[in-house]
């Protein structure tokens, strides 16, 4: 048995104190700013209390941004999980151990790239005239132009595809590793019962992995909130406001267009409240 020691106190207290200060100061200050009417251009300000929040709910561009963010969240999370489970199961089924390692290495590469790099790589690939990803379309149609990033109907999906390229492939590796940790007996038993390959996965292996897969989805939901870099580089929220998520809109209100820092902060505070409540509830459910 280990003796009583000062170690937990000396190791924990400074770190937790610093984390608390570093996180609570900006959080509380964000709320303070949101209740004022600060602007970047002028040093003076006064307290306006909740009028920024009231304005937000009348701001159609804000409501659009909420809707775009929700769409982004759903599209990227669902597509990432589908790609991850699909490729993970395929690797488990048809790839030899050596091939699995090789694919795992390849599939980790996109997620390591800075989002700015990934965004740029694909922005150029989607270029209507010179892009490599639009080349097959030009080849088949004899030179017609397809510009996914400048059409409101396709822009969000084109940006989301980059997110899925990064995270879906990476999660496929994790799904494979999870499948490898399963005991072989249930799979053998199902096979003896003449279950088909897809049936084994749909009814045996994936249900066994329900808890870790839900945790994985949870991680992806958190990471999907960080869409800013991709959207900033690829579309800047455009065309129009078709890809303007909440963080993009907050940034352009606070810094590009009008310098309304307080208005932007009110938006950020609403985002913070929504995400903290949602994820705390989800986390408690995942843990239970």
């Amino acid at each position: 048995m280990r003796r009583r020691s000062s170690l937990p106190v000396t190791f924990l207290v400074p770190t937790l104190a610093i984390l608390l200060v570093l996180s609570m100061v900006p959080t509380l200050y964000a709320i303070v700013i949101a209740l004022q009417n600060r602007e970047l251009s002028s040093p003076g300000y006064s307290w306006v209390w909740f009028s920024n929040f009231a304005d937000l709910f009348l701001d159609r561009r804000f409501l659009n941004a909420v809707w775009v963010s929700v769409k982004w969240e759903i599209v990227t999370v669902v597509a990432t999980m589908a790609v991850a489970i699909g490729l993970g199961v395929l690797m488990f089924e048809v790839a030899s151990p050596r091939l699995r390692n090789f694919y795992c290495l390849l599939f980790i590469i996109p997620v390591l790239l800075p989002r700015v790099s990934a965004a740029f790589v694909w922005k150029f690939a989607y270029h209507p005239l010179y892009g490599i990803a639009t080349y097959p379309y030009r080849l088949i149609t004899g030179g017609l132009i397809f510009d996914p990033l400048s059409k409101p109907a396709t822009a969000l999906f084109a940006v989301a595809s980059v997110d899925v390229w990064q995270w879906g492939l990476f999660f496929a590796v994790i799904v494979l590793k999870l499948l490898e940790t399963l005991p072989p007996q249930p799979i053998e038993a199902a096979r003896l019962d003449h279950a088909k390959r897809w049936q084994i996965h749909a009814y045996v292996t994936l249900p066994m992995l329900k808890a870790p897969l839900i945790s994985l989805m949870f991680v992806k939901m958190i990471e999907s909130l960080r869409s800013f870099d991709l959207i900033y580089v690829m579309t800047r929220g455009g065309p129009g406001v078709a890809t303007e998520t909440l963080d993009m809109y907050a940034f352009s209100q606070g810094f590009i267009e009008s310098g309304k820092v307080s208005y932007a902060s009110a938006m950020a505070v609403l985002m913070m409240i929504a995400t903290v409540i949602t994820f705390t509830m989800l986390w408690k459910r995942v843990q239970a």
Partner: protein
Amino acid sequence: MKPYRLRPGRLIAKAVLALAGFLAVFPLAWTALNALKNNVDIITRVPKVVFTPTLANISYILGRDSVLTGLYNSAVACGAAVLIGIVLGLPAAYAVARYPNRFAGDIQFFVLSLRFLPPVAVAIPLMVIWLQIGLYDTLPALIVTYSLLTISVIMWLAIPAFQGVPKEIEEAAFVDGYGAYSVFWRIALPVAARSLIGAIAFSFVLVWNEFLIALMLSSSNAKTLPIVASELSQQGMNVPWGILNASVVLLSLPPLLFLGVLSGFLNSVFRQKKS
């Protein structure tokens, strides 16, 4: 397991996998190729595979002051933040892993919940604060802000790493008369080193790739490499594409250096789970 006959389904599955593997690396490889092309070879309707390579783009990038400053800022900001993350995060993680108390669950949740905070919500007030105390657009401001990220991530990943150290080894050291601190230094740290290096590498990649906070907290002096690269790409459609591609390659290289370490880390995490 008995071998399965070769069926069309298996062939299709292998083809899909091969396609996915191709899609994973091809866009990046193409960018690297474009970095070696003259502009006339990039702006073609039919992609060119055969061309006369040039090093002009790369030497242009490496000769630009803005890029070199960005590289320096990124290296210092990320290096310092990771160092602070190690010094503060690892001991705290060890205390949570090895000295369970009734707050352990709450501490873990608090550390994780820092990841829920939208970066805009942190960056806007911090910008105002740094402006007020005159540290806006400086490296120390960026380092302090990034430390929040590195400490929490390193702590979160190091807790399971320390829990993976066999308890018996530590108990034996106690019996041999080691104190609590030297058990941490001489036993837990070296035994868990492999996983810990993975956790540290992960936190480095995270801050190296960070964009939004750096964008909001710098205007000229403290710009990191991602900001410089994104500014190059915002120069409209007449940009020298080759130079852009070269800057993307430069930005992407450091995280890719950790590919081996991180895939090893992933393997060790799941091996632990299995046993």
